[in-house]
């Protein structure tokens, strides 16, 4: 299969749609097992280990997060939250078909709501994608929140 830049860009759009439609189990399957979903706490943070992050989740933690959303006794999801990503056309920063390796940088506005509360986050998402068995998969995702140093209430879904 020959990958085009449009395929890479379409993947990013499709992932956002999947999350917004609550298809979280499908979203988990986009990931490679050893991929890390990272959301830094500090502006331009470089160290994920020795200072706090908002998220730094491996396969197990992502699965736990998704399973919990559907749990019988997940009271913070009764009623459930909803979210919406509005995304700018991703920049394809790396396009290496020989290695099957691609990197994108995407600006997003993320809205999450539950009951009468709603909030807006401005984000930059950086994806590392790999072509495995003819399919694009997520090898790593870093989401930087523009106001990462602000105080937030609950952020329950997947910015």
């Amino acid at each position, binding site marked *: 299969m020959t990958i085009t830049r449009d395929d890479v860009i379409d993947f990013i759009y499709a992932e956002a749609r999947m999350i917004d439609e609550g298809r979280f189990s499908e979203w988990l399957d986009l990931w490679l097992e050893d991929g890390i979903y990272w959301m830094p706490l*500090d502006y331009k943070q470089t160290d994920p*280990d020795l*200072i706090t992050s*908002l998220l*730094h989740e491996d396969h*197990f933690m992502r*699965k736990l997060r998704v399973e*919990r959303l559907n749990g019988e006794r997940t*009271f*913070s999801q009764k009623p459930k939250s909803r979210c919406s990503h509005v995304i700018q056309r991703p920049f394809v920063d790396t396009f290496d078909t020989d290695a099957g390796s691609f990197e994108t940088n995407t600006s997003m506005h993320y809205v999450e709501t539950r009951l009468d509360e709603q909030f807006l986050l401005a984000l930059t998402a950086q994806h590392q994608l790999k072509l495995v068995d003819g399919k694009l998969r997520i090898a790593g995702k870093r989401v930087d929140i523009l106001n990462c140093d602000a105080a937030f209430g609950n952020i329950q879904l997947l910015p």
Partner: protein
Amino acid sequence: MSNYAGNPQAVAALVRPNQVHRDVYVSEEIYRLEMKHLFANTWVFVGHDSQTPNKGDYITTQVADQPVIMVRHSDGEVKVLYNRCPHKGTKIAIDRSGNTGKFFRCPYHAWSFKTDGCLLAIPLKKGYAQTDFGDTAASRGMKSVGAVHNHRGFVFARLAPEGISFDEYFGDAMSSIDNMVDRAPEGRLEVAGPPLRYMHQCNWKMLVENQTDACHPMVAHESSAGTAVRLFEESDWKEGDPKPMAMEIIAPFMSPYEFFEGMGQRTWPNGHGHSGVATSIHKEYAEEDEYGEAMNAAYGEERAAEILGENRHNTVYFPNIMMKGPIQQLRNFIPLGPNKTLVESWIYRLVGAPDYLLKRTAMYNRIINAPTSIVGHDDLEMYERAQEGLMTDGNEWVDLHRNAEEGEDFGHEWTGNGTSERQMRNQFDAWKRFMLATMDTPAQEAAE
């Protein structure tokens, strides 16, 4: 209509031996009285001195509702100053941290101050010569808080100029901070990165109470910790393999009531106390040899074992911080209103210890206490439901009876059942005393 200002009897009546009136959580007037009395009369956490290592380094923060600057003065001591220019009130600094050199300079009219607050210079000084400026507070510069004490790096302030001393206020409760610092082979801590900042639409006391509430984890956190345990059991992990750090952290939340009962609790006078006397949810963490060796080298085997043998799960320093000695975390529950609390969760490096400890601490902080944390979501949902539920008029009292004893005396150290609500009752005993300490003074009330 005012119910409580100038009415200490009404404030005292809000705290019964095993119940408290909902107004302590929902009343705007009680919140303002807390700021004026409780938070002025007690010793409140300001920051860690490793946040201001060099002369002129400062941080801006707040003690209760008072904006303050914590700064390293030219003599090496840490000072805590009210963050306003004595001229027109302009905040002197608003960035969260920085270095001001030898003096602060107000950005509005260039009044300048030494880093202990003393007035250094005013432009057009001759314009003040024929006035009574020299008799005013403004001429003395930036005002310091009532008293400051640095205990092994942890800086506390008492806003009131007169009141209980640091040693009398904390007494033996400082043993938890001592134990946390002793866990560093070099005997000191360093702050590691910025804090998590998590906004809660609930009263600050709900958060403080929850720190020693050993009956909620297996219920409120079933969704997160319970699911984690189930997923882990379904995984292909084999008995004897090292447990992933994340599971070590989250799984013990599902321990049964008996575990938390046996974990034990200790209370000290003035509202301080801790869970985890005999054991704790942090007890079974796997440790690497390198750390034990560094501790043995620093302290000798016997003392090192004694330090690491302490459990000290959650220590509450009344009124509004909790620290976890075994994982070097401090949470500051900053009251912003009767129904609004900013929670800052800080972590520290054990100086001289291997990195894996700080890695675990950072992991704990984000898994349990971040705005993005599934465990945090469980807790905040309960606080916010309580804040809303307390508005119902069907019952105006919150219940704190569990394991209450006849005629409880909070004036001495006590240890007992880990699921007792004793520490919550201890906090309200202190709450009442430090609220009333200055409310009884008619002159002060008249000035309000």
